């Protein structure tokens, strides 16, 4: 017998669920109106390299607190540091490989690590002040963990040891070489140290910190990690992010380069883990610029031409790439884009190559930069009907200090050690701190500040990147945009009504598409120089081309004979490291129609917004030091925003 009370309860429940469905649907139809700023790529003291370069103390908790605008202690110089403007979201993404191992070895002195043979040697080296040697030994043993037995040097026997001892009497030997030979000759040395039970504890700790700081609507902490394979010292690195909370993340250990250095295995694992746990992942490739021509290739890891299955799998997991971060720009390079006068920007000139006899200079191929990958994507799509490189764009810091700052005047260093002006020159060995600049951030158009909304924006690519300033950019492609739309009170609602936002697709049409663009300066930052559109398209033979269009600019500048605009000017005082907003514009808007449109071929369009020149961290440092500006490094830079493209498919 059902009582009245129970019936009432049932009715109430039904009403409630109907109400939730109705409001849920209404919510989904709303256009994203919130612009959220965050960093999806940040390392803390449990990343092996962060620790080895002196971040011993800034952990995930520090990272989230700092991102929320609270003061924090810098892990190297111990001064109080704080963000000028807090972030809306942050992902702590420590290297999954060797997660927490140096921290456990040197700080926690975990006997499971300190009593291993390699652990003892590393401690010995560190105690002798030979931290760099310890670092090289650790990283080489990791990178070469998968080396074939036949390639390994012979194990060191008593005879060799004796010979070394005798040789030492004659002249001092290269100890590094001996250490390397020792560690490479015996893979079990590394295996003793790479303990998954140690990783497990640190993975849990990062999850716990994320759970503590996640506050839907106010601040989002995304759970994630970095997958950092480096076959042949080429960075094929990806950050993996998820929309789920700790309940899901605790069910697995993050997939690492120790599991496989083939990204195809990562995608497979992401798929399997999604099926097993319901995890919702996005992988973000980064530092294509130092991938030695391996990031955006036309072939699979095995060397076969890309086929439809591969293209679809890759596009499913990797909808977005980092185009700017502390280790330089991955948008394009002057060699690839000779007609782009702004292509020579924050190029990173060093591979992460620790073998002294190997080449140290990055390659410049179409597989190393995102713009050429977008072009390659059109060509492949044309041939096989699927595009592996339909990439949106973001920026991220990839800081290793636990402190996500992309501000030139408030730069925390790439590693903890190169955070002070006096350490910049020598801080990281071959790589000068001034080689790098404070960059970048991810901007996300969302309905609200939650994990689900942010990951969903990544999946539809309604995201963009900047080199640090919070330049607000709207970008819509469609048909029928008019100049009068620019003065409308709600420009975005017109954009959504007549077109698609960044990351979207335009269908076949005989009429050239038009684009509605708005860029507003960082409220606390510099004015804007210009808005550009970068177009890539296929010719009738299926070959890709690119062109940069100046769309709208500040001041009364007219194009010169070479069709180029004169520069916006430069207000940076080299003596005081100040600039003025007396040039440039606080806001630029435009409706632009493609004058070279061909309805029959594929194309993509993305926006680049340039700021007026502002001081670079190298200038702030030299002024602070009262020294001459460091040679070979720019003193100013034109910070910028890059939007995700809009694609046209006939």
């Amino acid at each position: 017998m059902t009582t009245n009370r129970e019936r009432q309860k049932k009715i109430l429940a039904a009403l409630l669920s109907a109400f939730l469905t109705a409001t849920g649907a209404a919510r989904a139809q709303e256009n994203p109106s919130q612009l959220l700023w965050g960093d999806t790529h940040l390392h803390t003291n449990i990343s092996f390299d962060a620790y080895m370069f002196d971040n011993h103390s800034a952990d995930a908790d520090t990272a989230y607190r700092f991102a929320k605008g609270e003061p924090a202690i810098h892990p190297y110089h111990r001064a109080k540091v704080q963000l000028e403007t807090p972030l809306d979201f942050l992902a702590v993404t420590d290297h999954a490989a060797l997660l927490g191992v140096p921290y456990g070895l040197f700080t926690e002195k975990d006997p499971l690590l300190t009593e291993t043979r390699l652990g003892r040697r590393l401690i010995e080296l560190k105690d002798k002040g030979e931290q760099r040697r310890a670092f090289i030994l650790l990283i080489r043993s990791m990178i070469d963990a998968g080396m074939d037995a036949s390639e390994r040097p012979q194990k060191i026997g008593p005879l060799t040891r004796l010979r070394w001892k005798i040789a030492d009497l004659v002249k001092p030997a290269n100890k590094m070489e001996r250490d390397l030979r020792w560690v490479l000759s015996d893979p079990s040395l590394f295996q003793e140290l790479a303990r998954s039970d140690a990783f497990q504890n640190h993975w849990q700790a990062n999850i716990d910190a994320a759970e503590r700081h996640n506050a839907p609507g106010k601040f989002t902490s995304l759970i994630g990690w970095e997958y950092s394979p480096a076959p042949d010292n080429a960075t094929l690195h990806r950050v993996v992010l998820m929309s789920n909370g700790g309940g899901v993340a605790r069910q697995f250990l993050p997939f690492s380069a120790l599991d496989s250095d083939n990204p195809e295995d990562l995608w497979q694992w992401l798929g399997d883990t999604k099926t097993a746990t319901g995890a919702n992942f996005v992988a973000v490739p980064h530092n294509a610029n130092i991938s030695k021509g391996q990031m955006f290739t036309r072939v699979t890891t095995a060397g076969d031409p890309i086929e439809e299955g591969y293209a679809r799998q890759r596009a499913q997991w990797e909808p977005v790439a980092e185009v700017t971060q502390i280790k330089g720009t991955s948008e394009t390079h002057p060699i690839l884009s000779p007609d782009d006068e702004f292509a020579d920007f924050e190029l990173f000139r060093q591979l992460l190559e620790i073998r002294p006899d190997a080449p140290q200079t990055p390659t410049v191929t179409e597989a190393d930069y995102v713009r050429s990958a977008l072009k390659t994507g059109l060509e492949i799509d044309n041939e096989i009907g699927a595009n592996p490189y339909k990439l949106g764009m973001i920026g991220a810091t990839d800081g290793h200090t636990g402190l996500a700052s992309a501000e030139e005047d408030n730069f925390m260093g790439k590693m903890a050690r190169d955070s002070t002006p006096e350490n910049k020159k020598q801080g990281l060995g071959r790589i000068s701190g001034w080689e790098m600049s404070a960059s970048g951030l991810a901007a996300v158009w969302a309905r609200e500040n939650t994990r689900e909304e942010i990951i969903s924006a990544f999946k539809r690519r309604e995201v963009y990147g900047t080199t640090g300033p919070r330049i607000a950019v709207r970008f819509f492609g469609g048909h029928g945009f008019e100049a009068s739309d620019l003065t409308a009170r709600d420009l975005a609602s017109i954009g959504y009504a007549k077109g698609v936002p960044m990351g979207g697709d335009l269908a076949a049409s005989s009429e050239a598409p038009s684009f509605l663009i708005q860029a507003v300066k960082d409220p606390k930052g510099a004015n804007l120089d210009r808005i550009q559109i970068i177009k890539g398209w296929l010719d009738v033979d299926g070959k890709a081309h690119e062109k940069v269009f100046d769309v709208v600019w500040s001041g009364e500048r007219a194009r010169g004979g070479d069709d180029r605009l004169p520069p916006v000017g430069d207000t940076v005082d080299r003596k005081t490291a100040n600039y003025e907003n007396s040039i440039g514009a606080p806001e630029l808007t435009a409706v632009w129609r493609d004058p070279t449109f061909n309805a029959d071929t594929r194309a993509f369009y993305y926006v680049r917004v340039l700021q007026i020149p502002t001081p670079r961290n190298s200038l702030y440092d030299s002024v602070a030091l009262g020294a001459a500006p460091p040679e070979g490094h720019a003193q100013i830079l034109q910070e910028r925003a890059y939007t995700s493209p809009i694609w046209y498919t006939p």
Partner: protein
Amino acid sequence: MSPARKILKDPLAHFFAIGAVLFLVVSLAKPAQEEQIIVDREALLSFIQYRSKAFQPQAAAAILDKMSADERQRLADNYIREEALYREAQSLGLAEGDYVIRQRMIEKLEFITDAVAAPSAPTDQAIAAFYEQNKQTYYQEPGATFAHVFVKAENISPVAAMGRAQQLLEKLRADNARFKDATRYGDRFLFHTNYVERTYDYIEGHFDEEATKAIFSDRSPLSSWSGPVLSEYGAHLIYVTSRSPGRFPPIDEIKTILTEDMTRAARRAQTDELTDAIVAKYAPLIETTRAPLSQTTKLNQ
């Protein structure tokens, strides 16, 4: 009768024989019981879990049930080998003076200490005291909720913009316009029209100092249009609905955060206290008569 037969028939010999057998049985059987390694389902299940370092009994049971007879035998063999070697090492006293085991035991005790240090939920009184001690951490900046109507000074002079704004002000008043109507008047401002519970710093970033001061001053009465004030972008008419001064929020408002921060601090303090208590149980005897202390404690100087 051969001598052998004679012995077999001798009762004394029988007694010795039985005695010998008994001795053998007793001397062998007793230690055999001590050294017995029981290989049952439970033992294998915990063995699997220790080996995989994942403590999930159901998952371990599933693994065990899926094993073939061969695999199960191998698992049992490994288990027996580990258990036997462990017991033998223990009986030989190998745990003594081993620094790894020492560290590991300390680690375990610290882990337990940390778990024991479960600070009880703080009382309201304690929370209030904690808040008082750490007040500066919880200061909230002044904030305001307002809408504004903007007149661009891009193609006209600031004076002209102020003039146009003055006319708009009269229209707003005549239309009886309110907060929600602001979007229907004036030009598009490059940032926002409505600002809800925004801090002074945030607002100052979007307007300049003068305009921000006006928004936060009594010159702009609540729930009515005032202005115009000039910023670097143009003229603004302001409709402020609420202003909150910089403040220390009442405890109830931030109780969750306070409780969380306090518990964390208390846990740290308790762990330290417990460790101190353990250390205090042991009286250090610092040898001063024979070896000079200064030599052994040099590191501390």
